């Protein structure tokens, strides 16, 4: 397979699949499902080629594609992949297959629209992970909102419209301020190209005053923190996760939240290192509050799906803590924990969805003793819960261990508090498991519930195998992302301050010859086509 346009293919194959679905008849459910499954499987298989072509020793972007898109201002179609985004792309393609499988029978209305939304969502998410142009990134970031909005709002549960609206408005508030930040960066650097901006900042050709850097950091951080979601911006999450259909929850928890942490790692840390360092203790504080708060709230939930949703707040707190501890171990752990959370929580939502398909409720009180009618689902649920609470040998352990270890080296106190979250997570997960599956069968109608069907079993086996594999073979993953993580942390170093040459907002374009730099007419500085050799690499 030619790798020249592999990323373009990966990004737009699902969208093309969605277009094809549009041509099918709306009431031909079976073929709609089959086609959606084929597209998502093909996408997954193609994404596996990324691993083969990926050079683990290289720290830079690979599979790069660069084309002009919009000339003025210069927005490029610039795609690329590194060790940070590689596995997030794979996670997306994998979970989409699972999501399609999970919706096989549970979606009976407007089937066509459902799978179209799901596939367009996949395009949006992959686009986010592989875009290297800030505006292109933003385009995918916003585009993915609409299919998710429809997924929650049309196929969700009772309070779906409220949840969908809340989800969109929250995300939009953050992202539109990020757009202002992006354009501010553009006005200071004259480009939207991420690697170029990075090198301009790193070589000191463009510098920001601490105040401006703080504001820019804030504009980006808010967008990502809402997406993660970081306490206290998390309130959209329980609603969105609980009200979404199973596939929506899997994609939300599995992939969409990672877009937030990915953004922190890709943009906030390397672009605004001084502000990141300065605010790191505060961010860590919020992350730790999130870890403990999320866990405590999970503990008191009576709704199984809401419990899993709140556990995400707790788990993502770990990821943010790992990122802002700023040691290579903790960042590597955070990256790994992003994948773990995607798989484990995705699997939990899948299982909760299976229970819902049978009983049409998420209320824990309605269950009890389910191990008797459905031993297979019960054992998978236990396995996944154990992975989520961080049992050694399973995936969750590796990530949490790396994060706590890396954090402890520099900020022992942070690690101590965060570790409480690990204990609490065992508590709420096992307690919920006990109430749901053990004990007497309290409700008569639960006695005759069918166990996992062949389709469900295959989905669960796939998830369980991945959980075990990621638990024992973690070097296969971390080894490939190591170089990129190191590079990101190196990018945070800046040359020593050389006096008061700070670019405040009215900075002229730094790429233009000095005789043009002073004037502010458009022809000379602002939208001038990027200078030859502007792409530094």
């Amino acid at each position: 397979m030619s790798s020249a346009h592999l990323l373009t293919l990966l990004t737009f194959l699902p969208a093309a699949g969605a277009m094809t679905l549009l041509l099918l008849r709306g009431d031909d459910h079976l073929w709609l499902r089959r086609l959606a499954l084929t597209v998502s499987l093909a996408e997954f298989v193609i994404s596996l080629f990324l691993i083969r072509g990926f050079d683990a020793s290289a720290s830079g972007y690979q599979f790069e594609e660069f084309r002009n898109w919009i000339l003025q201002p210069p927005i490029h179609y610039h795609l690329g992949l590194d060790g940070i985004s590689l596995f997030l792309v794979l996670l997306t393609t994998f979970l989409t297959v699972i999501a399609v499988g999970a919706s096989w029978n549970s979606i009976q209305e407007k089937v066509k629209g459902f799978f179209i939304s799901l596939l367009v969502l996949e395009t949006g998410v992959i686009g986010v992970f592989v875009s290297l142009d800030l505006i292109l990134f933003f385009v995918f970031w916003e585009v993915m909102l609409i299919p998710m909005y429809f997924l929650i709002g049309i196929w969700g549960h009772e309070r779906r419209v409220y949840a969908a609206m809340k989800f969109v408005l929250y995300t939009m508030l953050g992202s539109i301020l990020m757009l202002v930040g992006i354009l501010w960066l553009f006005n200071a650097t004259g480009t939207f190209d991420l690697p170029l901006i990075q090198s301009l900042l790193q070589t000191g050709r463009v510098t920001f005053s601490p105040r401006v850097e703080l504001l820019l950091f804030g504009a980006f951080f808010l967008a990502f923190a809402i997406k993660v979601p970081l306490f206290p911006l998390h309130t959209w999450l329980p609603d969105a996760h609980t009200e979404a259909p199973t596939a929506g929850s899997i994609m939300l928890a599995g992939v969409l939240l990672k877009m937030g942490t990915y953004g922190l790692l890709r943009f906030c840390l390397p672009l605004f290192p001084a502000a990141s360092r300065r605010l790191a203790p505060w961010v860590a504080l919020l992350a730790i509050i999130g870890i403990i708060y999320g866990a405590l709230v999970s503990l008191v939930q009576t709704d199984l799906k809401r419990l899993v949703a709140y556990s995400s707040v707790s788990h993502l707190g770990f990821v943010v803590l790992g990122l802002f501890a700023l040691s290579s171990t903790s960042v590597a752990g955070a990256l790994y924990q992003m994948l773990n959370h995607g798989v484990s929580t995705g699997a939990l939502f899948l299982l909760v969805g299976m229970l819902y398909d049978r009983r049409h409720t998420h209320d824990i009180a309605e269950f009890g003793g389910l191990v008797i009618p459905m031993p297979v689902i019960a054992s998978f649920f236990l396995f996944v819960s154990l992975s989520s609470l961080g049992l050694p040998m399973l995936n969750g352990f590796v990530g949490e261990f790396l994060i706590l270890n890396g954090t402890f080296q520099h900020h022992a106190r942070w690690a101590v508090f965060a570790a409480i979250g690990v204990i609490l997570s065992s508590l709420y997960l096992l307690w919920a498991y006990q109430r749901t599956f053990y004990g007497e069968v309290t409700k008569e109608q639960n006695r005759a519930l069918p166990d996992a069907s062949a389709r469900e079993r295959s989905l669960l086996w796939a998830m369980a195998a991945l959980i075990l594999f990621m638990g024992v073979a973690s070097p296969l993953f971390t080894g490939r992302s190591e170089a990129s993580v190191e590079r990101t942390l190196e990018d945070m170093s800046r040359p020593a301050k050389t006096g008061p040459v700070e670019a405040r907002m009215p900075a002229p374009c730094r790429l233009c010859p000095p005789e043009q730099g002073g004037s502010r007419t458009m022809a000379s500085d602002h939208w001038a086509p990027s200078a030859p050799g502007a792409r530094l690499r």
Partner: protein
Amino acid sequence: MLASHQDLLRIAPELILCATGILIMLLDPFLAGGHHQETGAGRRVTDVLAVVGSAAALASTALLAWNRGTAFSGLLTADALSIFLHGIVCGVALLVALGSPAYLDREHLPHGEYFALVLFATAGMGVMASTEELVTGFIALEVSSISSYILAGYRRDNERSSEAAMKYFLLGSFATAFLLYGIALVYGASGTTLLPNIDSAASHTTLLAIGFALIFVGLGFKVAAAPFQLWTPDVYEGAPAPVTAMLSSAPKAAAFALLLRILVSVSEASHLWFWALWVSAVLSMFLGNLAAVVQTSVKRMLAYSSVAHAGYILVAFAARNQVGTAAVLFYLAAYALMKVGAFTTVAWLGGTGETYVELNDYEGLASARPIAAACLALFLLSLLGLPVTAGFLAKLYVFDAALHSHLVWLAVILAVNSVIAAYYYLRVIVAMYMRPARRPFTRERIPAGVAAVLAITAVGVIYLGLFPNQVMNLAIQAATMFSVSR
């Protein structure tokens, strides 16, 4: 002085529009059957004439491009700006001519007068787009306004429509009085009404300042910017929906053109207007968006949303740089597409007498009328400014212009307003896609003309969202022609 043929070529679109309008008026009595009712065939003739006339006017903007320069001793000019705006204005006329016949048939309204008025109004806007002289600008504005007043009240037996016309007429006359008085003061202060000459000829700055303040009030009314927006919701709601489609896009573009030319040519106005623009932009955004949030009628909600959009465009104005000028022009093009598309959809979905314009009436639309719902959703998302639509790039350019001139607060306010706006645009999508139908839907085919408008605007919105380069180039050409005086 006789007009040279060059002069005539430079007003080719207006000539064609007026000639077609007059032809329609002349033919109208002959096409009518008994009792002043038009016959079916007669209607088709006027429909076709209107479409052909506006299409020809649109095509003839090419003549302007080949014959750039001033006409009629500098009263008019055919430059990149006027060509760009002629494209918008004539394009809107074409879309309205395509989309209206079905509406007029349904409401049993006469076709002849309607299209003649549309064409005359467009001719007025065309002159506004190319004038460099204040009195000509005033006359052009009156030509377009008076036609619009009549069009707003075109549903004579409908109370709201009559109210709209009356309101529009009274407030509009008031605003034009401001404009005229302002022009008189400017003339008193400088002895000229030719925009390029005012700067050098001005002797009495206080008088000039008052004059331009009054002109700003007059034009602010025409673009529906706060605090001069009070007429907008009632007029847009009461006017026949296809007329609203036109009113909300083309006259705005024309008035913005005049505003732009004044801003560019007269440094006094540019200085004086900065805070006026700033305040008006902020007020328009907040008033428009907050009022739109509480509306229950989709038509009225869209009316308030155009106030907000006037605010967005004023942000680019306040930037007072060439990026801003280009942003204004691109925005106007994108805005015309999405607003005409949205109002045309609303007009068709309204049913006889425009009964179904409430938000409730849109519930369940996605299953009953999937294509119309999808188109409306697209226009709303574009108005909201989501990527892959024209609205996103338009907003992006405005943001860019504002930040280029360090108007950070204005940019942040614009950002906050975009989120407020998201709420009410999405509410319509919620109604269409996420609620079950409450009223019975009859199966209806989309009339060919309406389908054409929807296709053109929908494709245009996506095309501009993905491939803006050509249009943006034209906008930048128009913007680079003159540099904004500071």
